[in-house]
């Protein structure tokens, strides 16, 4: 794949995702330095999208709610990327992508951005969110799951080696359930198990509550067989985590008494 013409001939296959990783890198390099190739690729991608769009199908109705719940409280990446950054970051899952500073509600103090463990951390965030699978979806995707599990373990290992990490436990009121959180200076992982299922119009929502008592949503959590999990990137040292039951879609501010509240002290 050293000859530019050979690589150029791959533009079509690349646009159809019909290349392997080595080919993809070769094309990425070509496109980065050759505006004509980049322009051709943009055109071919548009053609490929027309092929994709030619076979529409109704998604399961539950997907909409699952998607909206999954992105609730989820931060976005920053724009970044070069002029011809691949619009689809390479095939690796979220873990290999650059990580932006968390974009939770504004905080009065600035927090240092983690560089080394940031990507893994975000991989964990993504894995947790994506783990909110569509109800009824069959989990036949062992390979994917194994990869996600591995990333989660790595992220968790990173988290636990954080010198500031503290593990705290609590018991939920009303119907039981046990909650555990790993708290660090600038993020927290919350999980609870043994929680009763909620009515159709209700969800479990996690909050970061600062010392002044101000609550910021850390996202709606998906109940899976009694278990919920969530990452709170907006957490800082001294904050508390609280879980409430809210109307489907989540609330701007808590509307019910927390079932459980966890703090480091």
């Amino acid at each position, binding site marked *: 794949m050293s000859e530019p013409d050979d690589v150029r001939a791959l533009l079509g296959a690349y646009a*159809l995702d*019909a290349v392997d990783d080595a080919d993809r890198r070769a094309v990425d390099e070509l496109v980065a330095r050759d505006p004509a190739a980049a322009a051709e690729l943009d055109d071919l991608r548009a*053609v490929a999208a027309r092929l*994709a769009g030619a076979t529409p199908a109704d998604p399961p109705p539950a*997907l909409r709610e699952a*998607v909206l719940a999954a992105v609730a409280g989820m931060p*976005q990446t920053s724009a970044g990327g070069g002029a011809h950054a691949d619009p689809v970051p390479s095939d690796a899952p979220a873990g290999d992508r650059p990580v932006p500073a968390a*974009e939770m509600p504004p905080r009065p103090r600035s927090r240092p951005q983690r560089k080394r463990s940031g990507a893994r951390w975000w991989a964990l965030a993504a894995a947790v969110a994506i783990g909110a699978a569509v109800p009824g979806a069959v989990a*036949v995707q*062992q390979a994917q799951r194994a990869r996600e599990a591995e990333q989660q373990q790595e992220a968790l290992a990173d988290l636990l080696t954080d010198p500031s990490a503290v593990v705290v436990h609590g018991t939920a009121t009303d119907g039981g359930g046990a909650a555990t959180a790993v708290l660090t200076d600038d993020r927290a992982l919350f999980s609870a198990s043994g929680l009763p299922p909620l009515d159709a119009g209700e969800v479990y929502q996690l909050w970061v509550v600062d010392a002044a008592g101000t609550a910021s949503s850390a996202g709606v959590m998906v109940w899976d067989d009694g278990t919920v999990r969530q990452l709170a990137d907006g957490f800082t040292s001294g904050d508390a985590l609280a879980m409430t039951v809210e109307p489907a879609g989540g609330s701007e501010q808590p509307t019910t008494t927390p079932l459980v509240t966890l703090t480091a002290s």
Partner: protein
Amino acid sequence: MSLALGPRPTSRRARSHPDPSGRRLPGRPADLSCTLARVVDASQESSAEGPGSADALLRAVAAGDRDAFTHLYDLLARSVFGACLGVLRDPDHAAEVAQEVWVEVWRTAPRFDATRGSARTWSLTLAHRRAVDRVRAVQAQRDRDQKVVDASAHRPFDEVAAEVERRLERTDVRDCLGSLTETQRRSVVLAYYGGRTYREVAEELGAALPTVKSRIRDGLLRLRDCLGVSA
């Protein structure tokens, strides 16, 4: 076997397709068959600019607008799910991958660059890529396990073609696929809807690698001209 995708017996006129970007490769013959498709297309693309268009919505999503995200979902959900289903075939798998795609749309919307293509193209590119990633992951797992995990890996061409034929809705795409040469069409259909690499396509069609590479590229350039697509 021939894919039953053919031009419809519609009257057609030659069209001229000036390329404002000047990107047309020299010596590539203009396709004369798609006036009708162009008209259909124009009506569809005319909505690409308005406030409720996918482009405008994705720009709003990039700024963190959750309502815009909901609208974008409603606008593109069928296309995104269809793109996943086309490759994965299993509705449960397709729903899982579609969910991953939508989460990624939300997360990476700030990276959307309208100068490189439309929001629809961006979203569907992502959807197809993730569906193919899933097929290959499942395939790799199956290769390791030596057991069938998912029937969507390695469907024979006939099956892919029959499925595509059944599901293709847009007559312009259908007609334009029909305007390709047999090898171009088979290569494109197998690679895109079958989720194959060009190497696998070459193996399956018993063709040389360079041949398949160039057939895919030529086929897509011909589709571009036929569909009047530009990024």
